[in-house]
């Protein structure tokens, strides 16, 4: 875990990590949220809608923005104020995702940084884009 404080951060600083989405993650997400939409739960149904398999919950993918902010950038001293995200392409079980964030604005007066974040799959396709606003200790 990183431990950046506001004064450690500069525009353009970035962090990246990778994660592979597993069927177990899908089960756990379902257990937490109760979202039983067949596009996420039923492979035959998903294929019928033209996808190669179950579509990963968009919010499961976006949940890695929590990890990005809370563990990597800025890490320990972060408290997320907000996340805006767009699900540009579907994610599938087994995809290996590269989660990246870059500091795009620093507001010292209010103790907040803006992080432009992306999630890219193993084929180099951007699947999720996000703007994170993270408060952190001075």
């Amino acid at each position, binding site marked *: 875990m990183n431990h950046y404080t506001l004064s450690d951060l500069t525009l353009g600083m970035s962090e990246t990590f990778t994660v592979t989405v597993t069927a177990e993650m899908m089960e756990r997400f379902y257990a937490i949220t109760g979202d039983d939409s067949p596009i996420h739960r039923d492979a035959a149904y998903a294929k019928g809608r033209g996808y190669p398999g179950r579509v990963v919950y968009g919010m499961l993918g976006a949940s890695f923005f929590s990890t990005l902010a809370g563990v990597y950038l800025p890490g320990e001293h972060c408290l997320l*104020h*907000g996340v805006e995200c767009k699900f540009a392409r579907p994610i599938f079980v087994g995809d290996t995702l590269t989660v990246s964030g870059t500091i795009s*604005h620093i*507001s*010292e*007066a*209010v103790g*907040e940084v*803006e992080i432009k974040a992306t999630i890219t799959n193993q084929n180099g396709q951007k699947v999720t884009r996000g703007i994170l*606003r993270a*408060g952190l200790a001075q």
Partner: protein
Amino acid sequence: MDNQMIFDAVQEIFRDNFDDDTLVLTRETCADDIEDWDSLEQINLLTAMEKKFAIKFKLEDVRGLKNVGDLLDLVVRLTA
């Protein structure tokens, strides 16, 4: 940028932040007048203004802001 342009831009930031295209600001408008104007929205408003006007607020600048008039005066001073 003259004062009217700054006012218009600030009003646009408020409208965008509170998703209310009918919002009309006066210099006396304060957090008590806008239901969702809480501490988190105050941060969002200030960072949006930093970006819009390419300015940097200091903690002592924003600590005593009481209403839109104070905010406008601060932006005018920092953009002068």
